[in-house]
């Protein structure tokens, strides 16, 4: 060999004493800052947990399970069941609506339309609900456009109450959490190679059959993720039941807030909060279990 290899000056000495960083150590090093922030979340949860077994007046020193006992009273149980029910229904509806939207978004070609779609999908999630609720009020309220139109057409005499009840809240829940379902579904569908659809078509499947028998099953992990996100997000929804439910739809998060202001009952608020956290974690774990299995199955066959 004519030319000696070009090396750095320090290389020769370095190679002897150099030991590579263990990959696990390096991974955790990279994760540390994020973990710190998430640790705040965990510490916060633990604090709430501690607070929930305190007593009013002696929040940190006292210990009692009264707050939890209080949760079994009919008022709270009703609230819990209501919360779970609304969260579940909103998740189902949101997912059903999100599937066609997600499919369209996944297969869109024109960049302009894609951007409009993305904006239309994300805005309901982001824009302050206070303002959106005024938007709903103006259309669906007792003196709103829809009622006035129906009155004008002679179809009704008294206005239909579409807001300030469970239906109004449900609608608000679906509308604001809908983006949380669309994005995972769109993402999953985007990942389904077009060749599966083409193969199914050559085997004789109509477009609808292809959708039902190929695309839907393959995007199931995305659908479950979307449903989970909507459920968990809506179970702890605060602003929607507050603004669109009048005083008649006491979802759990509203309970939590009520215990703080005006009741100043931190332990009770915390207990309700703990129930919310536990519900969320259970749903997330179950969902991850199901989607994990499904995803592994899909990956293995590719």
């Amino acid at each position, binding site marked *: *060999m*004519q*030319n*000696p*290899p*070009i*090396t*750095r000056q320090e*290389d020769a000495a*370095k*190679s002897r004493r*150099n030991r*590579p960083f263990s990959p696990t150590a390096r991974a955790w090093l990279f994760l540390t800052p994020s973990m710190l922030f998430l640790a705040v979340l965990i510490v916060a949860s633990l604090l709430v947990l501690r607070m929930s077994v305190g007593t009013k007046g002696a929040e940190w020193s006292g210990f009692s399970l009264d707050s939890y006992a209080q949760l079994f009273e009919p008022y709270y149980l009703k609230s819990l069941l209501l919360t779970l029910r609304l969260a579940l229904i909103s998740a189902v509806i949101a997912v059903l609506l999100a599937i066609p939207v997600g499919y369209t978004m996944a297969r869109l070609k024109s960049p302009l339309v894609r951007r409009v779609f993305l904006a239309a999908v994300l805005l309901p999630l982001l824009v302050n609900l206070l303002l959106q609720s005024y938007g709903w009020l103006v259309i669906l309220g007792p003196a709103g456009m829809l009622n006035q139109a129906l009155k004008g057409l002679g179809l009704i005499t008294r206005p239909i109450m579409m807001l300030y009840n469970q239906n109004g809240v449900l609608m608000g829940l679906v509308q604001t959490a809908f983006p949380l379902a669309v994005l995972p579904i769109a993402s999953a569908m985007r990942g389904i190679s077009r060749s599966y659809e083409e193969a199914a078509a050559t085997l004789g499947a109509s477009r609808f059959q292809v959708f039902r028998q190929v695309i839907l099953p393959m995007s199931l992990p995305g659908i479950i993720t979307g449903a989970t996100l909507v459920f968990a997000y809506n179970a702890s929804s605060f602003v929607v039941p507050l603004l669109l439910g009048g005083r008649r739809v006491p979802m759990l998060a509203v309970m939590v807030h009520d215990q703080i202001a005006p009741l100043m009952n931190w332990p009770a608020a915390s207990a309700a909060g703990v129930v919310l956290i536990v519900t969320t974690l259970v749903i997330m774990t179950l969902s991850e279990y199901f989607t994990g299995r499904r995803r592994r199955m899909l990956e293995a066959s590719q």
Partner: protein
Amino acid sequence: MTGLILEDVEKFYGSACAVTDVNLHLPQGKLVCFLGPSGCGKTTLLRMIAGLETVTSGEIRLDGEDVSHTPAHERNFGMVFQSLALFPHMTVGENIAYPLKLRGVDKAAQKARVTELLAMIQLQQMVDRPVAKLSGGQRQRVAIARAIASHPKLLLLDEPLSALDAKLRESMQVEIRQLQKQLNITTILVTHDQREAMTMADIVVVLGEHKVQQVGTPIEIYRNPANAFVADFIGSGNIFPAKALGAGRVVLPAGDALDVPGSATIEAGAEIRMLVRPEDLQLSARQTPEGNRLNGTITFIRDVGATIETTVDCGGVSLTALSTPNQSLGMAVGQGVSVTIPAQACRILSA
């Protein structure tokens, strides 16, 4: 001693063995091919030499120095990956200059070396071309240029030609071989294509079932395969069972007897496996069988223009003979034909 030495090298992932019992001495300046089917451990072995995988046990020494525990970025080995791994966000010139930049080479010297390499690979005008705008063959050459930019002691190629179409692959094989000889750099090339190995290698290391099956020059391995695995993998072969009769004769399952001098040392009654290369078989019009001539019926003819492969069924044993169009007897499937197996063309394989 110079060259690359692998001593008792093995790699386990947990309890799963990737490769074991590897003992190799690869002399300096030679092109060595690691040849084998997928999953045999050849890429793992290459990556261990590169430093991208840890060695479970054993030693890797280059020119007497133990590099088994040196991190990859300090070994100064050039490597071309299967996907080429050219940096998409850099131009051709920046890609090639990267190893030089890392080593603190000054700008002028970098430019000179890049120009020199581009001339070597005949892409002088491409210095500022973004990588995405190159053709497959051009990318190949840039990847190689980048790998040798810092005058590495070893060049490693992991199935570099697998993404190219057949014609381009053949011309690149020749180019790489010529470049290697010109630079006189020790090179290891991993491939599953035995034709590639035969074309390019000074030494072929046949790997199978996580072990080294045979090491030798391409022709050695072709003519004297160590076992059935190697015989089957290199070239096409007619491999069939037989029983030794002693005194240099064997008998085929259908009862035909052959003279095989190589079987003289095998005790009578032993079951053996025989190898005959297609080009050694001689076809002729059907005659009475005598000596090493068998009769059979043609079952398949593969005429690829330059050669004709005729498959004949001789008493249950399927033999394929290779001939050129000039030697063709103009036969068709279903016809009777005689096949002569020259005694010295027979190889006896250990299982």
